[in-house]
């Protein structure tokens, strides 16, 4: 994959060398065009929007100001929301990856006949819209909800409790939504591993725990990074689940953007928030990619 144009180009005179250098770009051009049209342009528009000015009764007026970015530095609501979002996304992603890892490993290790049932189970949340899932949790967490009834009738607690509108409910909701993505990413990584290496490790004297740390974990490192990134991006960006299940004070950046956009009709401010959020996610992605070593890239 790293074989660039210069590696392939013969060291001959100008003419063919130029063509060789152009070929990879020409081959990439359809994909590049799509990426620019569908991802590059919207972000460019959003970037431009974030420098516009805002007056009452108008979404925006064209202009060039850094006010929207400056507001973020001075506004305690924004920094609090940034912190809340990161914390929520980080914890729920770690929990999601942990659960998804165990789940994917079991599906990989169990006999084939279990596989389809597990996969169907993991697909279920993907078939339902986020809003429907939220309604589901509304029947699960409140005082008269399923959870409360289950805990009381099993004798674990004596009084009905409500976990609705708590940070815990927001965590559970986020984890539930991102779990299937993590599961499928990790399962595809596990499926690429020859199960015989586990036997080889045991055969050479590696206990199950050492086999996990020496063989399985290094071989799935890339998958852990990818599924963590997937889950983190989703958790950072989504606003419906945390704001519908969490407490009123749980202000995430997603919620703030929504509020600026739909509530206060301040498009430039919403765009500036979004740019910061997008850049933050990009930085996290780059860190994750750097942490996932080259060795994993080489041996997949």
């Amino acid at each position, binding site marked *: 994959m790293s074989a660039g144009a210069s590696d392939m180009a013969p060291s001959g005179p100008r003419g063919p060398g130029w063509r060789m250098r152009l070929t990879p770009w020409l081959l990439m051009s359809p994909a590049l065009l799509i990426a620019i049209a569908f991802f590059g342009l919207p972000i460019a528009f959003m970037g431009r929007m974030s420098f516009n000015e805002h007056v009452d009764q108008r979404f925006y007026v064209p202009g060039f100001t850094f006010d929207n970015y400056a507001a973020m530095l001075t506004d305690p609501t924004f920094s609090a929301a940034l912190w809340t979002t990161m914390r929520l996304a980080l914890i729920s992603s770690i929990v999601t990856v942990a659960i998804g890892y165990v789940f994917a490993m079991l599906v990989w290790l169990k006999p084939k006949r279990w596989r389809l049932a597990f996969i169907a189970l993991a697909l279920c949340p993907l078939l339902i819209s986020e809003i429907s899932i939220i309604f589901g949790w509304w029947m699960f967490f409140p005082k008269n909800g399923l959870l409360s009834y289950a805990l009381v009738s099993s004798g674990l607690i004596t009084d009905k409790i409500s976990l609705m509108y708590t940070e815990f409910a927001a965590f559970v909701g986020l984890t539930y939504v991102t779990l299937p993505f993590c599961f499928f990413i990790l399962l595809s990584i596990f499926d690429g591993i020859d199960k015989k290496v586990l036997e080889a490790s*045991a055969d050479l004297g590696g206990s199950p725990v050492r086999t996990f740390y020496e063989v399985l974990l290094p071989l799935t490192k890339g998958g852990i990074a990818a599924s963590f990134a997937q889950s983190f991006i989703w958790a950072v960006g989504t606003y419906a689940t945390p704001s519908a299940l969490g407490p009123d004070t749980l202000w995430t950046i997603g919620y703030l953007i929504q509020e600026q956009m739909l509530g206060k009709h301040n498009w430039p401010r919403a765009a500036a928030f979004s740019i910061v959020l997008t850049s933050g996610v990009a930085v996290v992605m780059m860190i994750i990619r750097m942490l996932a070593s080259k060795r994993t890239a080489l041996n997949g």
Partner: protein
Amino acid sequence: MADTNALELDGLRRAFGGVVAVDNVSVDVRRGEFVTLLGPSGSGKTSTLRLIGGFERPDAGAIRINGSRVDHLPAYQRDTTTIFQTGALFPHKTVAENVAYGLRMRGVAKADIAPRVRQALEVVRLSGYEERYPAQLSGGQKQRVALARSMVVRPTILLFDEPLSALDLSLRLQLRAEIRRLHDEIGFSAIYVTHDQGEAMAMSSRVAVMRSGRIEQIDRPEKVFAEPASEFVYTFIGESCCLRAQVSAGAAADSAGAPLELRLAQPLGEGAWRIYIRPSRLHLGRADMPNGLKARLDFTEFLGDVHRYHFKAGKLELFVDHPGAVVHKPGDAVDIGWQTADMVAYQ
């Protein structure tokens, strides 16, 4: 310790669902012995190996390594190492790290690991490949790393699970000779599973021929070839022609009832017989030999050292390997003769 066997299998049995994969298998492997389990696929040879390695648990019977019972121990606590069919190298570890793995797991002192790894790679002729990853090796090199990785821990018994069957022919022959050389030099004890009788004959101290989970015969390769204990062993080891003859009132007929011109020095009793002879022990144009059959030449094949003559006699088909130029034409009726000692007959 010197007088105990490296490995003893005593009445091993393992069933999967209703299928008995390993049925009352008993084998002793003496120290330094190279025993091959030979059989067609599904004969239980790999299942037997997996029982020894600890990847499956026996339903009944005992496994003893160095005289002590191990069948309750998990794989990682048994003094065996396996060379897998696919190598099963750790793809994220270098060659040196792969070979060092077993030493590290067994708690060998750090200072001793590097020289032992170096020596093991020297033995399999892969010095200089320490820092490569498995993905950068050819199939034969991978298997040699697997061999080094398993041998370096000096287990009581090495287990080979068809390690050469995924390689092409010339590499197979080369590695086969190399494993043989290592065995002669180092004198490890081994169980080698294969369906390739050539491998079994070339490498083994003793061959155990397996069929449907049972051992049909276990003996030195020469003995198994010369004196097969059963019809199955006879047909599985080496090539053979099978003459199916119906004998009644002293006359032989083929399966359709057409009479055969079959002469036998020792007449067979009434009934359906299967007479086996090796194609190299059949002689062309020899009506003077104690046993004989008149058959019609169908076609010939050139095999290099010999021509293979395919004959038909009624419903019977047989072939004869004969050196020298082809003298018969298709359609010719030819006398085929053989010595009484070269044939076996089963009813």
